[in-house]
């Protein structure tokens, strides 16, 4: 029990004054002064504590206890108040420390881009990897044998003409199998891949190809992705399903594909493959105009394909490709064409100008 004494009264008085001052302190500096004033070496309360021994014995315990409690209470109040003030001051300081957040970051990390052709190539590659295909790369300087002969091109096929194929100097005998040329398609790798590996074979062959054309829709260098799937039971319906998957992955889940009969020397049956236009409905855009992308057809040609011609297998029969035992499909698509369609690039040549203002738009 605390007994009232004159000294305890004084302690209460000091305590009350001090608590009032603490609450009134405006900043941490003022609070520090208050701490010194009430709890410092020369302050009254600590002195009271120190002089408790001099008090009459009857007062000693009560006074000592009261002073000690008062000191502890003051210390706690100061700490609480100090935390309050420090938080408020930090808040103010941070508030003053504001910046224009709309200025650019600095230093800006430079942003580089893959070329649109590479981006598109990777996109297509990744779809085919998911479908179980591997990626093979072939030679760009090839022989007549792999580019034409083993792909069942007749000796008179017009693609062999020097107007249609780049040949390596000196003046070539364009019908000799060893004559060197720049591959006109990625298809030579079909036969090379089959020479290297028995079926089942699932590959795509992306890469540069060359033909002597130069206008808004042809550059002498371009890129193709060849595909070849050979197994015991590959069908034309499998080709359609595979290309449907790819078309949807590249152009959107709403797409359809259609096969149109065509002719290629190294496939039989041969087809051209169209994808339904993603810019219109049945050839007409939302505002009723004839679609400029598909020219009102509703379909856009994207590639050539077919069932591998048995004559091609004859060239690799001893590598495990007996045309009565295995069958396959093959296709070839232009990377530039896919990229231009998907990204609305109006002129093929832009892809080879490499203007930085173009490059930074993709990749």
């Amino acid at each position, binding site marked *: 029990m605390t007994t009232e004494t004159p000294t305890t009264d004084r302690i209460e008085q000091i305590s009350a004054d001090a608590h009032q001052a603490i609450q009134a302190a405006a900043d941490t500096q003022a609070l520090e002064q208050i701490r010194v004033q009430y709890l410092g070496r020369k302050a009254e309360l600590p002195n009271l504590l120190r002089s408790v021994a001099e008090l009459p014995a009857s007062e000693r315990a009560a006074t000592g206890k009261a002073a000690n409690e008062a000191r502890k209470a003051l210390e706690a109040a100061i700490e609480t108040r100090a935390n309050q003030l420090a938080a408020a001051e930090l808040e103010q300081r941070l508030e003053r420390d504001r910046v224009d957040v709309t200025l650019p970051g600095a230093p800006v990390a430079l942003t580089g881009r893959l070329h649109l052709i590479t981006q598109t190539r990777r996109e297509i590659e990744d779809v085919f990897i998911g479908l179980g295909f591997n990626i093979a790369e072939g030679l*760009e300087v090839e022989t007549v044998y792999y580019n034409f002969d083993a792909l069942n091109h007749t000796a008179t096929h017009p693609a062999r003409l020097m107007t249609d194929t780049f040949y390596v100097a000196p003046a070539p005998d364009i019908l000799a199998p060893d004559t060197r040329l720049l591959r006109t398609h990625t298809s030579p790798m079909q036969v090379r891949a089959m020479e290297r590996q028995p079926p089942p074979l699932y590959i795509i062959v992306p890469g540069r190809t060359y033909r002597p054309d130069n206008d808004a829709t042809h550059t002498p260098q371009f890129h193709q992705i060849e595909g070849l799937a050979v197994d015991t039971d590959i069908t034309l319906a499998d080709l359609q399903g595979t290309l449907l998957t790819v078309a949807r992955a590249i152009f959107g889940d709403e797409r359809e594909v259609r096969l149109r009969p065509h002719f290629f020397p190294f496939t039989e049956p041969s087809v051209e493959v169209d994808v339904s236009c993603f810019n219109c409905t049945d050839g007409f855009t939302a505002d009723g105009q004839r679609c400029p992308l598909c020219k009102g057809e509703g379909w856009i040609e994207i590639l050539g394909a077919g069932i591998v011609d048995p004559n091609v297998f004859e060239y690799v029969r001893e590598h495990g490709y007996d045309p009565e035992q295995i069958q396959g499909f093959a296709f070839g698509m232009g990377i530039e064409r896919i990229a231009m369609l998907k990204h609305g690039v109006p002129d093929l040549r832009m892809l080879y100008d490499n203007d930085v203002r173009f*490059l930074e738009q993709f990749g």
Partner: protein
Amino acid sequence: MRAPVEWLREYADPDLDTHALAHRLTMTGTKVDAILGHGVGALENFVVGRVLEAEQHPDADRLSVCLVDIGDQMPSQIVCGAPNVAAGQIVAVAKPGAVMPNGTELGKAKLRGVESNGMILAEDEVAIGTEHAGIMVLEQDGLVPGTPLEQVLPIATDVLELEITPNRPDCLGIYGVAREVHAATGAPLAPAPWTDDPGTPGEVELAAVQVDCPDLCPRFTARVFEEVKIGPSPWWLKARLMAAGQRPISNVVDITNYVMLLAGQPLHAFDLDRVAGARLTVRRARDGEQIETLDGQVRTLDSDMVLIEDAEGPTSIAGIMGGARSEVQPHTTRVLMEVANWNGANIHRTSLKLGLRSEASGRFEKQLQPEQAMEAQAVATRLMLELTGARLAPGTIDVGGPGPAPKTIRLRDARVASLLGAPIPRDRCREILNALEFSTLDADDGLDVTVPAFRRDDVTREADLIEEVARLDGLEKLPATLPSRHGASGRLTARQRLRRRAADALTAQGLHEIVGWSFTSPEVGDRLRLSAEHPLRRMVELANPLSSDLSVLRTTLLGSLLDVASHNRARGASTLRLFEAGAVYLTDGEERLPREPYHVGAVLSGAALAPSWRDGAPPTVDFFAAKGVLAGVLDTLRIPWTVTRATESFLHPGRSARIEAAGEPVGWVGEIHPLVAAEWDLRDTVAGFELDLDAVLEPPTPLYREVSGFPDVREDLAVVVSENVGAAQAIEVIRTAGGPLLRDAEVFDVYRDPEKLGEGNVSLALRLTYSALDRTLTDEDVAERRDAIANALQEQLGGRIRAA
């Protein structure tokens, strides 16, 4: 090929408009590239008229003012400039509103003050001929003024621009396309135009033909026509030629062209009186033998080329081009009509070797069938008799005769289903094949199919028959399935991942990828200051480049990178950070395939960092900027590498190095020589590198190394070494001397001061990091290592530690 729809419908006339017909043809494999209009438009404004009066124009000598009955209540006044206009003529009239072949709309006009309500037409004005000297005067019988002109003359037709694939030379004629229309639409097919041959077999007395090389000339047919009157062809024939894109010339020549367009088989008309000896011999040329062709050029032949000669020598290069000597002339009266079949590959080769192509050679080289020769001969005979007043001399020369017996192929039901992924009923297959003129017999497991002569070369195997039934049954019926794969799985190879990561490491450092040309100019060697024997000068050369500056294949990526840098600099780009990844083509000069290693190259110019509002003037690139980017690639790939001072002629000799990995050179890094940069109009520092990514080994799979739980001890050390030593060598010595406790040593400052350090010396400030796996290192540990380092520097490099 241009197929006038009006002509096509004579043989197969489906109940489809042109667009629907085109769609059906396209979806069954005869692709229609375009639908064109030929002739005039607004057909209601073209009518038959009768000239009632033709008076001299009061103010123009050469104009007539005509009153023409065009079936209206009142005759029309039309001013006409043709000299042959006369009262009483039945003529073709275009009324105002008529749309002419060039698309212009005819209006009312005043000619020298006299009103003209239309035009009396010449044949060229409605694109059914080329004659413009006078108006067309129509046959009078029964033609009533006001009759729509389209009922009298073929003045307008749609034309299908067809893509005929090389396997279908049978479709290079209108009747061949009509067969496809029949099979694709079910429209009845009219009998072939050669069904009734007015000719007779047997000897021909007036001419003889000898074929010395039957391997190259499987069939040669000829007939002789006497009392031929050369003149213009009728309008219906001229109109069809025009619509098909051929210019009418005279009846005999037009007949050869018309029959070619109809039957797909070229013909050649000789003036028999100019065939010396009335005898033609087909033989191989002698090596070096010369002949002058119709185009006036002298051609030198070889013994694999075939010519046709008469008693005075060669007259034609077989299947390609005739000679002027025996050409049909305006006064020709006796015609020898040659229709022959040639070996397509041989024609192709001759045409290639001579650089000589013609409509005929373009068809023959696709390999026509011998049967087609007699078909064309029959049609030509009928037209010669009908249109030239000729009399057919009895007999037909036919050397070689028809082709081999037709082939029969088994079409197995099961194979159809297994190749397509869905069955086509046997009845349906039979129906389709019969419509295509294949004959069929039922077999146990399918059909025995006999191929018609005109498809002999195209359809030789079961797969070819499957294509026929699939394309006509409709590919849209096929399901969409995925291959069963049988366990095959797809993934990138380690090398492919490496290439992707290299490109990603470059874009991450702010470089844009370019795709340059594989072609370049041989002069790039000079521009790169390459010595005459420099291996990069050995370029693969093209035989037929598009131009001389695209005539060789690149041996370095630097050329295309500088091309693109220059292009962008010219368009105002000050900072350039570009890379390319792809093949270069390295030849040893031998005639074999070049090596095509996969290179990665980069060029940098301008600011080394992005300028910002804090630092408006960042440093520009130099050697170390390029080396930093290179490090970003190789370190990302975890490929250990070093550089050695070395240069190339296109590099700054003091700021260039060779890149080495696993002790092998794999590329260069450096600043581009200012003279080389200037060749590409680049005036400031350009730095770059080129790396043969195929030459670096794939890094091994990283294995875990223990991480110390004890604190590192760091110490900065300045070492003084000769400038010739090189930082890499100094660090190597320090690392070795530092032993296993020294985990890292990095240069953080380089300092030169001849007075304090001595001439030719450099101070490298290094931050060393020591650690041990089993304990906290003491000062004594570090001091011991420092002494070892000091000794090693002294002993191996003549260097010293500058300040402890």
